[in-house]
């Protein structure tokens, strides 16, 4: 573990595969930006790989101030040992106060190895992160500006908020798709550091024999809450409202085929017969008319909220709560009400 370093940066592990960044890393840059602004520190992104330096600009555009590039031939294909070694070396060198990873299969493989080696705390599968002062109920010591690591636990039956007083860095993996990706700002400035890493080959204990990958999918199946948008959402900009709502609840963003076909959002978000079939605890359908193909993919949800301007939209036939109205007015009210509830 490292000593609590309250000037330390907020770090994002930049996950890339075959030279392209995983979306969750860009989502996390935005969240890290928010946390870092609250703490008045910088956002760092750690980017290990081979020949991946060109990805640094994307991380900066999405919120990173500093990108630490560890370019090494042994880092070409992900392997736990060398990647963990790189993370540990850089954490020791630069003492960040927070390190977050996407809760992808790769992130969930890497983060615990790093945490164990650093003897630091790690919380898995967070759906939200906040900064707050926390008083240790045992010692009555007040800890300023800790990372609140919020996650469902116990099979989704409870929401737990986890903190780590002093076994730093504070580490967490964060579910894919729950943090809103901030729009890229190519004018943002940032620094890129080429980091020396010592890898002697001993860490690379595995030999990759064969590999077969398919295009990535957003993890809609694992989401407890899905906020899905349809053609009625209209624009990409409007979709940001859905991300905000999903962020407030700790949910993922889904979409109908109409929204995907009109280019509002990627196909990996599609719910329905030709997309992913989901059954979350809560499904919020926004501007979705509710064609049978879509309903087939979501009507098993425990609770369904439908928002649509058309009172005759078929989606209302499967909804537990139907709201006839404009989502651009309704969603902000929902977010406000949820945030107020959360404070109680």
């Amino acid at each position: 573990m490292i000593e609590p370093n309250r000037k330390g940066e907020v770090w994002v592990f930049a996950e890339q595969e075959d030279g392209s960044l995983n979306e969750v890393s860009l989502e996390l840059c935005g969240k890290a930006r928010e946390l870092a602004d609250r703490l008045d520190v910088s956002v760092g992104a750690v980017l290990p790989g081979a020949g991946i330096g060109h990805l640094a600009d994307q991380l900066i555009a999405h919120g990173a101030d500093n990108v630490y590039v560890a370019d090494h031939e042994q880092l070409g294909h992900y392997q736990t040992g060398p990647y963990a070694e790189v993370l540990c070396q850089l954490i020791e060198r630069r003492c960040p106060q927070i390190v977050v990873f996407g809760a992808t299969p790769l992130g969930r493989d890497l983060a615990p190895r790093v945490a164990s080696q650093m003897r630091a705390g790690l919380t898995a599968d967070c759906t939200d992160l906040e900064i707050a002062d926390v008083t240790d109920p045992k010692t009555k010591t007040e800890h300023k500006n800790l990372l609140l690591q919020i996650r469902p636990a116990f099979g989704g039956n409870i929401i737990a908020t986890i903190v780590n007083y002093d076994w730093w860095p504070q580490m967490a993996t964060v579910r894919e798709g729950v943090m809103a990706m901030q729009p890229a700002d190519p004018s943002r400035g940032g620094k890129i550091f080429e980091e020396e890493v010592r890898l002697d080959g001993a860490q690379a204990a595995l030999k990759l024999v064969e590999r077969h990958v398919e295009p990535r999918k957003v993890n809609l199946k694992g989401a407890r809450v899905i906020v899905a948008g349809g053609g009625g959402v209209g624009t990409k900009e409007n979709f940001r409202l859905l991300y905000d709502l999903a962020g407030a609840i700790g949910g993922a963003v889904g979409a109908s085929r109409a929204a995907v076909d009109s280019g509002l959002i990627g196909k990996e978000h599609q719910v329905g017969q030709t997309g992913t079939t989901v059954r979350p605890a809560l499904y919020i359908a926004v501007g979705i008319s509710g064609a049978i193909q879509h309903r087939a993919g979501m009507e098993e949800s425990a609770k369904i909220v439908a928002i649509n301007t058309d009172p005759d939209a078929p989606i209302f036939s499967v909804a537990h709560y139907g709201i006839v109205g404009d989502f651009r007015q309704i969603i902000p009210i929902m977010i406000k009400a949820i945030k107020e509830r959360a404070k109680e």
Partner: protein
Amino acid sequence: MAYDSIVLIKQVPDTANVTAEAMKEDGTVNRGALPAIFNPEDLHALEAALEVKERFGGTVTAVTMGPPKAGDVLRDCLFRGADRAILLTDRRAAGSDTLATSYILSQAVKTIGRYDFVFAGRQAIDGDTAQVGPQCAEKLGIPQITYLEKVVRLEGDTVRIRRNIGHGWEVVEAKLPVLATVVETANVPRPKAARRLMRTKHARATVEIELAVRNEMPDADDATRQAEVKRRAEALRQRGLLIEQWGLDEIGADPTRCGLAGSPTKVHRIQAIVLKKEGHSQVPATEEGVRGMIYELVVDRTLG
């Protein structure tokens, strides 16, 4: 060539049926209030170990950390084909987070000594963290192979394993020993074997014998009870039915790295969510209407 496997298993509360009453004030779980089951993915880890034993020979040792009641899952392992069962139980281990748990388990593995494989379920259904396997591997200083779907080849000291990487799969090769975490698509766990069940159903750990003696002899003094525990334990040992029981001292664990003291993560707050279905309603598109709906979703625990 024969291979020795250690399987890390966990008894977990059946999270399909959790109520807020099962939570203690401090945010930890009152496991006693819930039905306890064999963690599902750990059954697949056990099966992976048994398959290696069947094909190549060797031994399977099941290890669990938990309260005395966790003896149940060890017996289950014996019924299915494990050769040896070890119960790690120590009050000082209570409240361990994943880091402390992996430290304790790794100390137990080191105490066992010789092994080629450590198998564990990918994750346990009470925490869903998937952290203990990799953390154990780090503490043992051996490679981890997460999300095992298949042992593709095993020859000499080299194993090839196919792992599920979410959006595909890869086959990796490693020198033994390795720690592998197993996913549920890896295999179909065998049922308990009737013959083994008959032979080992009376297997007990010392702490279980102590509980039984206390129940059966409530009026006896401590010395009498202790003598009875010793007698029963010895009788079981002679029949090969005494489940080994280790505390922190037996595995050389530093108590400051165990339990709450050795756990960096602290539960700050717990909110309960219980789902239930009900009727349909039309919500007015007003601030009041929307707030009412959110209120209902909070009250019925759909929203945390």
